[in-house]
C-alpha cells in the first residue's frame, strides 16, 4: 500500500486534532485562581545543578538554642503570624442564632437554616466546631426528641453524614453546604446528628468547617481581597417527629466555636 500526499496530509491532520483533543482540557484545568484561594506558581529557572541524591531520606536534629531575645525583662512576646504580616482580625459570624423550627407536624420534616461566615485573613486557617447542650427537649417535663440516626438503611453518626429523606425516620440533625464543609455532606439529603454535651461521657465538639490553607501571599503587605479571605457555609437544621411524640415546646442550644489554626 502506498501512501499518497493526500494520505499524509490527512494523517497529519488527524494526529494534530487528536493531540489537541487530549491536551486542550488539561491546559484549561490549570487555572491561576479559584473562588476560594489565590494560586501562586514558582519561577522555574534554568541553570541549576542536578541533585545527586535520590529516593527518600530523613534527618534528625537534637539540640538547644539560646533565646537571644530573652532579655533581662524575662519574657519575649510575639503577636500574630510571622508569615502573614497582617493586622486583619479573625472574624466569625452566624447569620441567625434563632432557628425557628415552628409547630411540628408528625411525619412532616421541619427545617430552618443559618449561615456561618469565617474571615481568616489574619490567621491563614481555621476550624469551626459544633456541639449541642442536649437533644431537643421540653423545659418543664423533660420530654426529648432524639438525635437523628438518618434513614434506617443509611445510618449516620456525629462524624459521618448519610441520607435522611424518609418521613418515617425521626429525630433532629443538620446538613452542611458551602465552603470548607466536611466531605461526607455529599448533597442536601445528607445529615448528621449534633455531638451531644449531655451524653455520658460527653461527645467532643465536631468540626463543621475547617481550612488549613493560607490565603495570603507570603510577605505581601496588601491583604488578599475580602472574597478570598471569607469562607461561608449554610447549616440546615431538620427535625421530624413521630405521631407518638409528646406535645410541647422543644428547645436546645448549639455552641459554634471558631478558632484560627496555630
Amino acid at each position, binding site marked *: 500500500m502506498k501512501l499518497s500526499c493526500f494520505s499524509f496530509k*490527512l494523517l497529519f491532520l488527524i494526529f494534530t486534532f487528536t493531540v489537541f483533543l487530549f491536551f486542550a482540557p488539561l491546559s484549561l484545568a490549570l487555572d491561576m485562581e479559584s473562588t476560594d484561594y489565590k494560586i501562586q506558581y514558582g519561577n522555574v529557572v534554568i541553570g541549576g545543578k542536578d541533585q545527586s541524591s535520590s529516593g527518600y531520606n530523613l534527618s534528625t536534629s537534637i539540640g538547644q538554642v539560646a533565646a537571644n531575645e530573652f532579655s533581662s525583662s524575662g*519574657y519575649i512576646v510575639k503577636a500574630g503570624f510571622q508569615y502573614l504580616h497582617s493586622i486583619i482580625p479573625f472574624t466569625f459570624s452566624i447569620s441567625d442564632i434563632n432557628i425557628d423550627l415552628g409547630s411540628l407536624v408528625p411525619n412532616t420534616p421541619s427545617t430552618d437554616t443559618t449561615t456561618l461566615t469565617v474571615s481568616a485573613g489574619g490567621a491563614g486557617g481555621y476550624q469551626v466546631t459544633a456541639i*449541642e447542650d442536649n437533644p431537643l427537649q421540653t423545659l418543664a417535663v423533660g420530654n426529648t426528641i432524639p438525635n437523628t440516626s438518618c434513614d434506617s438503611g443509611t445510618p449516620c453518626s456525629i462524624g459521618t453524614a448519610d441520607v435522611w429523606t424518609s418521613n418515617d425516620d425521626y429525630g433532629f440533625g443538620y446538613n452542611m453546604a458551602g465552603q470548607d464543609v466536611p466531605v461526607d455532606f455529599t448533597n442536601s439529603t445528607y445529615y448528621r446528628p449534633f455531638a451531644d454535651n449531655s451524653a455520658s461521657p460527653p461527645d467532643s465538639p465536631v468540626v463543621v468547617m475547617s481550612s488549613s490553607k493560607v490565603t495570603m501571599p507570603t510577605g505581601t503587605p496588601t491583604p488578599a481581597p475580602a472574597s478570598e479571605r471569607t469562607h461561608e457555609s449554610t447549616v440546615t437544621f431538620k427535625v421530624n417527629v413521630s405521631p407518638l411524640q409528646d406535645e410541647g415546646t422543644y428547645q436546645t442550644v448549639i455552641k459554634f*466555636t471558631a478558632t484560627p489554626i*496555630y
Partner: protein
Amino acid sequence: MIKYSFNKKIFRILVILFTLFCTIFFISLNQKVHAQLISLSIYPPILKAIMKPGKEIMIAYNIKNLGDPTTLQMLVLPFEPKDNLGNVRIKEEFEGPIRFKLDNTNIELNQPIFLKTGQSQQILLRIRVPEGAPEKDYYYTLFAETDPSPTIEGKTSSRSKARIGSHILITVTKSGNVDIKGKVSLFSVLGNKLPFFGDKISLFDSTDIIPITLIVENNGRNSIKPNGEIILRGNFGERAEYNILSQNILAYSQRQLMATPSAYFSSEKPVSLALSGFFIGKYNLSTKINFGENTPQLYASTSFIALPFKFIIGSFIAIIVGIVIIRKLNDDKDDENDEEEE
C-alpha cells in the same frame, strides 16, 4: 347631608386601609428583627510568649461586635493539638499553673459584658507564670462567648451561641534556652508508587499536579517554628524553590508544613505543596529546614518521574485511526481504478 355621609365613608375606608398597612408593615418589621446576627472579631489571632517563672505580662486584645447588640463573656481554656494540620481540641476545664486575669476596671473573666453594634472593646489580659512553674509549654485559648438568645415561646427551636478564640502559646524557661528536637517524619510525593529498578518511585503524567507532603515532628518540650524551603530540580537543569511557612509545631506533636507559592490541589487530603506545569523525566525534591539561628539543619529528599502518557496514548490512537482511514480511502480508490480499467 349626602356629602357628609359620603366623606364619612371615605374616612372609614382610609382608616381601615391605614390599619391594614400598619399591621402588614409591623409584621414584616418584626420578622426582620427576629433573625439575630452574631458577628465577632478578635485581634491578635495568636500570641506566643517565652517567659521566666515569676514574671507576668499584659496583652491588649481587641474584640469588636460587628453584629446585633449582644452580651458576651471572656474566658480562657486550655487546648491540645488535635491533628497535624494546626487544629485544636479545647478542654472545657481550666488546668495548668498559668494565671490569667483582666486588667480592665469594668470587666472580669467569666462575667457578662454588653457590646452594642459596631462597638469595640479592648481586653487587657494579664498572664502570670508563678514561681516554681515547671519548665515546659502551656497552650490556652482566649474566648469571647455570646449568651444564647431568649427562648422562642410556643415554638420548637434551636438557639445558637458563638465562641471566637485566639490562641496563647506560652513557653516557660528559666534560662531562655528552648528545647529544639525536630525531625522530618515524612517527606514524600503522594500517589501510587511503582517498583523501579529495585526502588519505588512515584510515576505521574507530565500534565498532572504533583502533590507533596512534608511532616515535621517535634520531640521536644517546647514549640518550634521551622524555616526553610523545598527545592525542585529537573534533569534538564530546571530549578524551583518554595518557601516553607514558619508555622508553630507544638511540643511532642507533628505538623504538616505548608510551602508557598503552591498550586491548588483539589483533594480531600491536604498537601504541603502542589506542583503544576509540564514535567518530563526524573525530578528530585529536597527540603532543608532549620529552627532558627545556630540550629542544625534537617535535610530530606524524594523524587518522582513524569512521562507524557496521555500524549503517547493520544498519538498512538491518532496513528491507528489515521492508518485505518487511509487504508479505507486507498481501498476505495483501488476499487474505483479497477472499475475504470474494466
